[in-house]
């Protein structure tokens, strides 16, 4: 049994007098201890909502969550508020996107780290501060004794994200969810943070759910990748398989649109046509069909089912033939 088992997770946002919005539509995936699973997709494909649903951080009113999220055999969605609060930070950690706004601006870093330790491990303040110093040291913050007393604005972006990781890992959670932890950082810092996360995950045997739109991050970190589109997983495979042989036209398009170092000078990028807004509901066919170069008539009539193809899950009527080069250039 996997540490985290997400089955048929759906999140529907509903406001009175408005059409319900299906943000996440039957997503399933497993995470084993020590494994890193990526959730990839464009903005609005349901990545962040999935993570918030797992953490129980979606608003009670307006968001209808169905399916199961089993952590170590317990369904997190059935826990009471109080039980869930006890688990957050202790069993489940989360690292957010923007390290500056995710830290409390008027509380020194040390107190923000020790707060979790006091809360979940019942440490007295003094002891928690010593532990906090060790944690900052472990995530590579130089001069941790001084940094303990500093405020978030006095730290650089990379250091803030390191501090957030220290806070998230303070109680050694078995599961860590990272929601685009590197988007707000520049490239060199991104690389440092990613290698830090990789190291910590390996050292502590933490299961990691990595949410990102950056395929570079996926390539460097994830064992298994789930590609999301319109709230559904359209392709799921081990990392090597996915990168070597993308079968879903969306995955293929994503990979083809990455700028390459070995491209000819003057060569145009190959974007995916249209935007996320150009979709049809999954109930009437494939949401990606309006943007898909491979679309057939059947794509806008029948919802593609999820098919298991030799360890790869694929939801497509007309997948890309292995070996197809990047999609044809878009005329400008």
């Amino acid at each position: 049994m996997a540490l985290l088992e997400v089955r048929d997770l759906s999140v529907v946002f509903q406001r009175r007098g408005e059409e319900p919005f299906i943000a996440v539509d039957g997503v399933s995936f497993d995470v084993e201890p020590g494994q890193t699973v990526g959730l990839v997709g464009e903005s609005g494909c349901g990545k962040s909502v999935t993570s918030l649903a797992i953490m129980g951080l979606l608003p009670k009113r307006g968001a209808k969550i169905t399916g199961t999220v089993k952590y170590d055999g317990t369904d997190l969605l059935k826990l009471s508020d109080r039980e869930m609060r006890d688990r957050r930070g202790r069993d489940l950690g989360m690292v957010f996107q923007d390290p500056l706004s995710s830290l409390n601006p008027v509380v020194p870093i040390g107190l923000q780290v020790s707060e979790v330790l006091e809360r979940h491990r019942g440490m007295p303040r003094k002891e928690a501060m010593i532990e906090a110093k060790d944690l900052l040291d472990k995530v590579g913050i130089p001069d941790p004794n001084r940094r303990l007393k500093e405020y978030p604005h006095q730290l650089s972006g990379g250091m803030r994200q390191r501090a957030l990781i220290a806070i998230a890992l303070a109680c050694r959670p078995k599961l860590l969810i990272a929601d685009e932890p590197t988007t707000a950082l520049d490239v060199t810092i991104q690389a440092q943070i990613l290698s830090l996360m990789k190291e910590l995950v390996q050292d502590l045997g933490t299961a990691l759910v990595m949410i990102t739109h950056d395929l570079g991050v996926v390539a460097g970190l994830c064992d298994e990748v789930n590609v999301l589109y319109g709230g559904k997983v359209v392709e799921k495979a081990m990392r090597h398989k996915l990168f070597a042989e993308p079968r879903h036209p969306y995955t293929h398009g994503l990979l083809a649109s990455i700028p390459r170092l070995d491209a000819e000078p003057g060569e145009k990028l190959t974007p995916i046509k249209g935007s996320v807004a150009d979709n049809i509901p999954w109930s009437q066919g494939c949401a990606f069909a309006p943007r898909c170069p491979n679309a057939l008539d059947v794509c806008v009539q029948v919802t593609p089912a999820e098919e298991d193809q030799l360890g790869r899950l694929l939801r497509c009527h007309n997948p890309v033939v292995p070996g197809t080069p990047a999609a044809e250039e878009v005329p400008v």
Partner: protein
Amino acid sequence: MALGVSKKEKIDDLAETAGVSLAASAWKRLKRSPVFLTGAVIIGIFILISLLSPWLAPHNPSDPMLIDQVIKARNEIPPAQPGHPLGGDLQGRDFLSRLLIGSQQTLIVGIGATVIGLTGGLILGTLAGAIGGWVDSAVMRIVDVMLSLPSLLLAFSIAAMFARPSQFTVILAVAIVQIPVFARLLRGSMLAQRHSDHVLAATALGVKKGAIVFRHMLPNSLGPVIVQSTLVLATAIIEAAALSFLGLGNPDDRIPEWGQMLGDVQKVFDTHPQLAAYPAICIIIVALGFTLMGETLREALDPKNRR
């Protein structure tokens, strides 16, 4: 040489800002702000005067020592004379002494009303902002009703409800009027905090509700409330003066109060405008001092402005 010194100072500065608390660094910047210093000097002098007024005042403020001059001149105001630099009032009492002692009342009423108003506002605002839902709606509707009445009119009505006006009723009337201002302000910034990333992050760490409200939401919401309270000090002083001016203050005029002094001299304003000018100028200067301090305090306490 001079350059060397300033460079060293700068390095010391940098070393100091590295690990100091928010309050300490705010104080460092306040010390250099001329606007804050002006306000602080005004308030400092005002507080000193009101504390020391029993010794500073040359005469007993309630002693009609110049009354024979008033009677002799048929209700004439005693003019300035040796021993009485500002002359006397309608009852022949030394005007300077009354002004000095009057600062006590202004200080007590201003601070008392602000503290009570702030406490009430903090409680209501925290309830509304932290709990939300129907508590929020209920509190805010009450606040709306109170805010829909002109503040002075509301203060008059509250003061007039008491059969026997006293200093305490003035404080209470002015304080109640300030509660909705504080409550609405705090609730607004609490709501903004509730949806902020760092509160979500704290929730994701399993921090308890109480700690989220008091450690994460409230301290980040207090900035505007602190500014408001210094500004309210100014309005409280003015409103208390207005109440006394209209006779809703302490009826015992042996204890002088600036607003009451202003009201007393209405009849002779044409002939002796200076008697109205002195208390009026005092009220304006003190209100200005609190306003100047409040504005600079807000800027200094904003962590984003830290250098």
